[in-house]
């Protein structure tokens, strides 16, 4: 057992660090969750892609570097340590791409992945519906068979950045007669500017116009944009849900960097006799370290031929709670400046702590609520009997 990086991995880290030092914008881009910020972040994706840093873990033919999970973890550590911008393409890269790698056709991969890697096409997700959140399999939007494809009808909601994005992917009920809710669903991709699509932005808790609901009225989707077999959408989608909860959505580097910034804030601002606050800073540092080591163990297991299944639910609960605790501690350290938003000119660190705090509160909800994750942990990892939710 060891935690040593090879010379090649160290060289990879050095290369990433040097590139990031040279390219990360000196002052932060406007918020990713606004129209202007979205455009600025799309440009940043192009900058990343130009030097093959946008999708390091993908095969080279699609614009990646074929990096191992361990190298991807290294890249992410450097990325967040450098204070690089948020990733506007994250839904496509973390959710759709893994699905295409596992269930897509060569034609779909060749058509969809390079434009995603370049930031030319930014993807939004279309999972939730007004009556289907945690109970996603109860969804009602339909896909009806038509010549050469499918007609989508219904309503999707809470779709992040769909007001600015280009295309979306989601689940639709293609066989209303199927016996159980999980059956008869189909996974489809569609353009957000297609005929019959209406996008209505919804303001979020953080004041950003970055949610949207999608109204779909006979939107035609050709057969080539179905992923996996029609009717098998649940199984196809669950493979991406695992990715979202697992490592890829929230890499350890994000929390390692945040814990370091928190420690620096504490050293600058804190009253050393305030041991209650000190303990919380220590817990954030410990939590970030535990999450990083847990990821290394997972990467080692995958490298040894294993896989990560329901264990990804452990990750999801852990990082989402860590994120909140870390930001709450930062706000307490900042005292009266803690509430200043990213629009306040006097906000410390450009308001990133306040913005990060509000966003952290969403962590236990998105990517499968923590209640659902705890059910999964209890039933699949501990073997407890299924019961009513």
């Amino acid at each position, binding site marked *: 057992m060891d935690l040593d990086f090879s010379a090649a991995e160290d060289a990879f880290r050095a290369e990433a660090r040097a590139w990031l030092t040279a390219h990360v914008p000196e002052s932060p881009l406007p918020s990713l969750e606004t129209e202007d910020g979205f455009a600025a972040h799309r440009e940043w994706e192009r900058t990343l892609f130009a030097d093959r840093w946008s999708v390091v873990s993908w095969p080279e033919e699609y614009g990646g570097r074929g990096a191992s999970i361990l190298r991807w973890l290294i890249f992410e550590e450097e990325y967040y340590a450098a204070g690089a911008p948020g990733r506007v393409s994250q839904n496509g890269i973390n959710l759709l791409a893994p699905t295409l790698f596992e269930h897509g056709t060569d034609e779909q991969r060749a058509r969809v992945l390079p434009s995603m890697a370049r930031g030319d096409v930014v993807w939004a997700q279309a999972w939730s519906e007004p009556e289907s959140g945690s109970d996603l399999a109860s969804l009602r939007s339909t896909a009806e068979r038509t010549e050469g494809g499918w007609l989508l009808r219904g309503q999707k909601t809470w779709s992040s950045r769909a007001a600015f994005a280009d295309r979306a992917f989601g689940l639709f009920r293609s066989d209303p007669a199927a016996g159980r809710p999980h059956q008869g669903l189909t996974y489809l991709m569609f353009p957000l500017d297609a005929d019959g699509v209406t996008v209505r932005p919804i303001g979020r808790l953080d004041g950003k116009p970055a949610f949207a609901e999608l109204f779909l009225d006979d939107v035609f989707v050709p057969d080539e944009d179905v992923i996996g077999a029609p009717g098998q959408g649940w199984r196809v989608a669950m493979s991406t849900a695992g990715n979202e909860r697992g490592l890829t959505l929230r890499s350890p580097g994000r929390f390692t960097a945040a814990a370091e910034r928190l420690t620096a804030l504490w050293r600058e601002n804190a009253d050393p006799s305030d041991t209650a606050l000190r303990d919380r800073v220590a817990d954030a540092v410990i939590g970030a370290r*535990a999450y990083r*080591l847990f990821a290394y163990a997972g990467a080692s297991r995958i490298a040894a031929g294993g896989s990560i299944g329901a264990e990804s639910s452990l990750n999801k609960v852990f990082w989402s709670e860590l994120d909140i605790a870390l930001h709450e501690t930062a706000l307490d350290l900042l005292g009266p400046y803690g509430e200043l938003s990213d629009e306040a000119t006097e906000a410390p660190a450009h308001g990133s702590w306040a913005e990060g705090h509000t966003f952290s509160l969403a962590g236990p909800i998105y990517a499968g609520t923590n209640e659902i994750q705890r059910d999964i942990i209890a*039933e699949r990892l501990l073997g407890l009997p299924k019961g009513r939710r």
Partner: protein
Amino acid sequence: MRFLLDDEQREFARSLDGMLTAADTPGAARAWAAGDTAPGRALWARLAEAGVFALAVPERHEGLGPMPLELAVACAELGRHAVPGPLVETVAAAAFLDRLDEVDRLDGLDEVDRLDGLDGFGHAGAAAEWLPRIAGGKALLSLCVPAASGPYALDPDAADAVLVVDGDTVRLAETTGPLQPSADPVRRLARPLGGTVLARGPAVAAAASHAAEVAALATAAQSLGLGRALLDRTVAYVGQRTQFGAAVGSFQAVKHRLADTLIALEFAQPLLYSAALALAEGADHASAEIAAAKVTAGEAAYAAARTALQLHGAVGYTDELDLALWIRKARPLRDAWGTPAACRARVLAR
């Protein structure tokens, strides 16, 4: 990087688990609490045969160590089975004696003189006397470092020797004060008193702080194993206990507490392994890593104990159920050899 136990380490853990499951370990713990240490010492001898104590003793004194990672793996299994006795103190005493012996051996007479010790601390002295016996399971030692462990020695009446390190002086306690029963009656505490000075000097203080690190690591490992045992037993119980016409383990309020227990233990484990690797390398960051593992495993095991008690209900509050042996140990282990507050301070120390 391969941050996983290898097959041999896994097999070692499995074999200890099997051996302690087959032995009547709860019976030995209950006898120990009642002052009958014979079953516990018999168990101790079998653990020595399996190589547990040799992991803390260097080869030149008939051991295999020091091997902190394997020691952590073993201590987790001993914690899982709530093995009685001064396990942590014995391995920490071995680390202390080994470290002083090393100074003596490498730096020669000058250092010994400065230590103001007896004639040769090492091969002719305490290290040579005790280390082979520790490795062979023939000696139980207790160790008291008031600055790190508080004023009491664990199980001094059962121990063959009690080492006390106060500042830069180490002595062999002559006797102990009256027994101060712990809330966990398997832990028998008393003040070490009197005795002869074995050595004095900065090397003594340095060896004691090293020993305290080993003790913190071993305690963290015990906590982790203890927490896993509490979780396993509680999962089994709520799976078969029926109320309102259903297994109570099918209720969300029950499931979610157990899920949180598993999360806390799963994220403590890599901190423990990483700390053991850091200690093995003698890394500068070992102290902070051990502290992180100690507070995380200790808190996780204590939370597991509270969950175990709550989900067992009234039967969990009985002494008849062996679960009590695990529940009562969680809090003392959380606080022994580094309180949570002390550990958190060390994590941020520069």
